[in-house]
Structure formats: structure tokens, C-alpha cells
């Protein structure tokens, strides 16, 4: 599909260890403009950890990140944002005691000529962006603590979108949402995709991401099981990858693929 361009994000041989425990071990994944890549795996498979390296929250022990083919170093969240990488965390990462506008602009406040906070301008911008995302949202003065799950989610999404992300990371984006709100998020993802934004969708539940993704990458025990074009595999194939680490045909296997299964099914493609 979009393979003709150079990848927007190319993460190669990424590793990170916490006290001897290799949370992410030699994982390589990539993402093209206008593409949605689902990152799947059980809780604790290392998906969130891998993605937090890209968003600047963790520092990798080994590996290389290329953006538009250029090697980059991402040492903190500010540097990630400067590269156009925005993240919507599973926990939403909102300061509960602040209102929607303060959260939207946290770390990137609009300021007046005198370098003071321009709360009125921030609230005004917040009203505009929320008006597009969630027209029913009216509680601009309240701390986000008092908002519903869906409203909080839309604040977190607004924060990622307002600053013109090129690369969007969504960690369990629909975990806290009802069916209607989930459908809204799906619509939003399709819209962003059409604008050429690359999206990583992280989930432990295949049903959340299968229909939205162009490709899926599966992780297990910190390693990459494999990456597949969604059109080439079935949900059951992917479930087999998640649960057993078993790579079916049409899947590019990674270091974490189960060796015996590969030997049996793919013979010459056996992994070391």
C-alpha cells in the first residue's frame, strides 16, 4: 500500500530493561504516512513501554529511531512533541484539578505580550476545538476530575490534535468508552488517516483495532512476534500470534515468534 514512501517512523532493534527485566527486547516496527498500525499483545507484553520510548517518557537502552528517514534522539516528551509525535495515554494523563483548556495547553501555554498566561485565549481555542470534537461539551470551567470518561477522553484527544500531530499514538483509546463514543473515535481515526497522519493504535483486544488497522504488529513477552497486513490474515491468525506466538503464512516473523511452530508450518523460514 503506502510502502512507496519512506516510513514516517522507523524504530529498529529497540530494547529497554528495568532492573535486568527486558521489558522490550530487540523490537523493530515502522509506520507510514496515512497508515494505522495496530500494536497488539497481552497486558505486560511491552506495547506501552515500547510506545513510551517513542513519546519520550522512557529512554531506550539500545536501538534506533528514525523519523522521515532521519535518526533522531528523543530524550523527553518535549522533544517528541517537537517532532510532531503526540500521545493519548491509556490513563489520559490529565491533571485532574485543572480545567479542559489548562490541560489542553499544558506545557505549551498561550501567553500574552507580558509573558503571562492568556487564559481567555486558551479557553477560546479550547471551545473551538472541542466544538468540533464533542459539540455537547459545555463544562469548560470545571476541573476535568468532574467530567465523564468520554468527556475526559475528548480532552485528551483534543490535546493531541490541536498541535498538528504527524504521528499519533493512541494507547487503549476506547477502553473507557461506551459503544457510541467508541464509534466516534473510530470515525476520528479514519478522518485523521485521510489527512496523512500516521497512527499507532495500542490494544490488548484485537476487536478494538482489527477493522481500523492497515497492519498489525504483535508483541509477546517483550519481543515482536510478527507484523502482518490485515488483508492477509484473519482475526484467528492474529489471536494465535497474540496467545501462542505462532506466525501464520503472510506474516513477517520477528524474534519473538515461536520457533517450533514456525519450523512446522513454514519449514525453511525457521527462526534461530
Amino acid at each position, binding site marked *: 500500500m503506502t510502502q512507496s514512501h519512506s516510513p514516517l517512523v522507523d524504530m529498529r532493534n529497540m530494547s529497554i530493561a528495568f532492573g535486568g527485566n527486558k521489558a522490550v527486547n530487540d523490537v523493530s516496527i515502522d509506520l507510514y504516512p496515512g497508515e494505522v498500525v495496530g500494536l497488539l499483545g497481552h497486558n505486560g507484553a511491552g506495547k506501552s513501554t515500547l510506545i513510551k520510548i517513542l*513519546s519520550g*517518557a522512557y529512554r531506550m537502552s539500545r536501538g534506533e529511531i528514525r523519523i522521515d528517514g532521519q535518526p533522531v534522539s528523543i530524550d*523527553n*516528551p*518535549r522533544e517528541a*512533541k517537537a517532532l510532531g509525535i503526540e*500521545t493519548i*495515554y491509556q*490513563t*489520559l*494523563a*490529565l*491533571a*485532574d*484539578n*485543572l480545567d479542559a483548556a*489548562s*490541560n489542553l495547553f*499544558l*506545557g*505549551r*501555554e498561550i*501567553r500574552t505580550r507580558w*509573558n*503571562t*498566561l492568556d487564559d*481567555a*485565549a486558551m*479557553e*477560546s481555542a479550547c471551545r473551538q476545538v472541542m466544538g468540533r470534537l464533542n459539540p455537547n461539551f459545555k463544562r469548560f*470551567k470545571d*476541573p476535568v*476530575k*468532574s467530567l465523564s470518561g468520554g468527556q475526559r477522553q475528548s480532552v485528551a484527544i483534543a490535546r493531541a490534535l490541536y498541535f498538528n500531530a504527524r504521528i499519533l499514538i493512541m494507547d487503549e483509546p476506547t477502553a473507557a468508552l461506551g459503544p457510541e463514543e467508541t464509534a466516534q473515535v473510530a470515525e476520528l481515526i479514519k478522518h485523521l488517516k485521510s489527512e496523512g497522519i500516521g497512527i499507532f493504535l495500542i490494544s490488548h483486544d484485537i476487536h478494538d483495532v482489527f477493522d481500523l488497522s492497515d497492519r498489525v504488529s504483535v508483541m509477546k513477552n517483550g519481543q515482536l512476534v510478527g507484523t502482518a497486513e490485515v488483508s492477509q490474515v484473519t482475526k484467528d491468525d492474529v489471536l494465535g500470534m497474540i496467545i501462542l506466538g505462532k506466525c501464520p503464512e503472510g506474516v513477517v516473523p520477528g524474534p519473538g515468534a515461536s520457533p517450533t511452530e514456525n519450523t512446522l508450518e513454514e519449514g525453511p523460514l525457521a527462526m534461530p
Partner: protein
Amino acid sequence: MVDSSTNPAKRLLAATEADVRILGMVAVLAMIWLGFGLVTDGAFLTPRNLWNLSVQTSSVAVMATGMVLVIVTRNIDLSVGSVLGVTGMIIGVTQAELIPAWLGYDHPTTWLMALLVGMVAGAIIGAIQGYVIAYMGVPAFIVTLGGLLTWRGAAWWVTSGRTVAPMDSTFQIMGGGPAGSVGELATWMIAAVICLMIIAAILRGRHLRRLHQFPLRPVWAEWLVGSVYCFGVIGAATLANAYPWPSRIAQRYAEAQGIPVPDGGLVIAHGFAVPVLIAIVVGMVMTFIATRTRFGRYVFAIGGNPEAAELAGVNTRRVIMLVFVVMGVLAAIAASISTARLNAATNAQGTLDELYVIAAAVIGGTSLAGGVGKVAGAILGALVMQSLQSGMVLVGIDTPLQNMVVGVVLVLAVWVDTLYRKRSSG
């Protein structure tokens, strides 16, 4: 904000966008004042007592404004009383021994140099504590508990325990008293300026809301809010001007200035005390920092969710260290007020102040869970604590019993705060 509630009290609160907690504190303060007024046959409510009360509150109020930021970031500072002690000693030695040896006594800039030296010392102490807390990861409780002992010891060490006196004559103005008050005319002018600032703030608020097409407060509510504030300011000015200098001092002043003394003695009003004005200015500056600057916004974001602040790109460790630097500078300003008022620097100065300061912040609505607090609330809290203490002194309650009451009030305040938060979030 304006809901369809038919309850007139609720409608009034919604229309004026009043802070219920601050209103509650004003009510508590009024009850304390009226209660002590009744028990002391009005002695508590004389201009003299209330004026002294305002001066006694200043030092704790100055520090409480900084404690708000400390507690909002989910930290605590138990060392403020000792930091006041050591910076007070440094300020005292600077103006009573070091500068006189160099420029002679009562040089016009002595007071300023002493104050600046103290503030720099406070900033360095705060930076050391803040660094250990933010960058080395030692809990603030432990670092400042160690600081409580360390800086008290350092205060003793500056002069080996000797009391330093007297202070520079200009410096003493910061402590209040007849010479440390601005007089009748200046008091009215300050009150007028503050009233104009209140009106300007209301007009600017309306202008900004209209500019961005936000809902406006009803005009009657704007008038009500403005009048209440201005009435309070004019009331305070009237009170301060109703307390005349002691006749003996007025007499001496008149002789020195060659003013004829009328029959019945010369009446010179105190007006606002300088330490009170310092506390008000500090309160305004700290409110500005807390609500209008990025630093203040980050302080609150860290208190609400440290991880979120970090992920949003806030340099949380630097912000926390800076909070302690601010606290150290404020402790030095409080030390200036305190040494100037006492006209001496002693190594015991500020002992137990940490309790009053923390109590003032907590009573003023700062939540120990972090993320919530108001500078104005802390100043009111300081006034509540000082009112209790002064009232008990007037009634003749013994010091040990006073301490017991202060301790119980602190615990009560946190309990009421916990109840309030449970109800408002549930």
C-alpha cells in the same frame, strides 16, 4: 455556571462566582472576632487590638503564601521556622555588625542590603533543600525535618547564640509600630488605589469575556462583588486610622518637629502598618505567580497529576526545586519583619512558626492531597490562627493551653477539609 436552580442563595453564589470556601472562612473569622469581642467586653474589637493583630499576622502570612505552593505540589516544609531563624540572624549580623564596620551606622542603604543578603541566603537554603527533594528523591518531609534542626543549629552558630541588637533605624520600619506605619493620608491613598485596582480588574474581566464571547456575570453581581471588596478595603483603612499613636510618643514627635500640641493632646493616626503592606504586596505577587504564570500553572499541574505534568513536557523537578527557593525567600522576608519588629535577631526566632504557617495554609483551603490551594485563603488562614492566639492571650489563657488549642484546630481544619472534599467529589 449559572444553573436553573431556584434556591436564591445558590443563584447568588453562581451569579457572583464566589468562592464558597473563602466565604466560609470569612464567616469563621467573623465568629471568632465576635466571640472574643463578647468575652472580652469589646477589648478584642478595639482598633488597637485589631491593628496589632494585623501586624502580628504579617510574618506568618508571608510564609503561608509560599507554603501554599509547597503543599500544592504534594510536599511539605517543616523547616520554615528555622529558616526564618537563620536568615534573621544573618540579616541582623549584616546590618548591626558587618555594614556598620564598613559604612558606619544608619547608612541609608543598610536596610536594603540587609534585606537582600537575607533573601539571597533564604534562596540558597531553599535551593539546597529543593535540590535534595527534587533531584535526589528524598521525601520533603524528611529533608525539611532535617532542615528544622540544621537551620536552627545554624542560627545559633552565626553568633554562637548571642542576640544581635539593635537593628538599623530604617530597617525597623519593616516591623511596624508608630514609625513603621504610613499615617492617615497615605492610608487613604493606598485604600483608594486598591479600590481602583479592584474596579479595573472587574472591568478588564468583563472586557475579556466579551472579547472571547464567554458568558458575562450579571451587572448587579459585578456591582455587588466590587462593593463588598471596596467596602472591606475602606473598612480596614478606617480601622487603621482609628488607632492613634500613644500620646507620649505623639508628644515627643511634636516637640521634635516643633508642632504646637493642641488641648487634649496631639492625635496622630497609625494608618496601615508597613509589615501589613509588605504581606499584602507579597500576597498579590504570589497570587499573580500562582494564577498568571506558567510556573504557577505547572505547580498546580504537578499537584494534580505529577506523571501527566511530566508527560506534557513540564520539567517537574526544576519546578519543585524553584518552589522551595521561593519558600526560602519568603522565610527571609518574614525574618526581616520579625527581626525589625523585635528590634533584635535571636537564635530562637521563628520557633514553632512551621506549625502556624502550615495550619494557615491548610485552614485557608490548601489540600494536603495536593493540587488545590489559594494564596488569599492562606492569608485569611494566618489571620484566623493569629486571631485565635491573640484572643486567647486577651482572655488570659495560659500558653500551654494555647498550644493545645492550636494543635486541635489544625487537626480539625484538616478533618473539615476532608469532609468537604468527600462531599464535593461524591
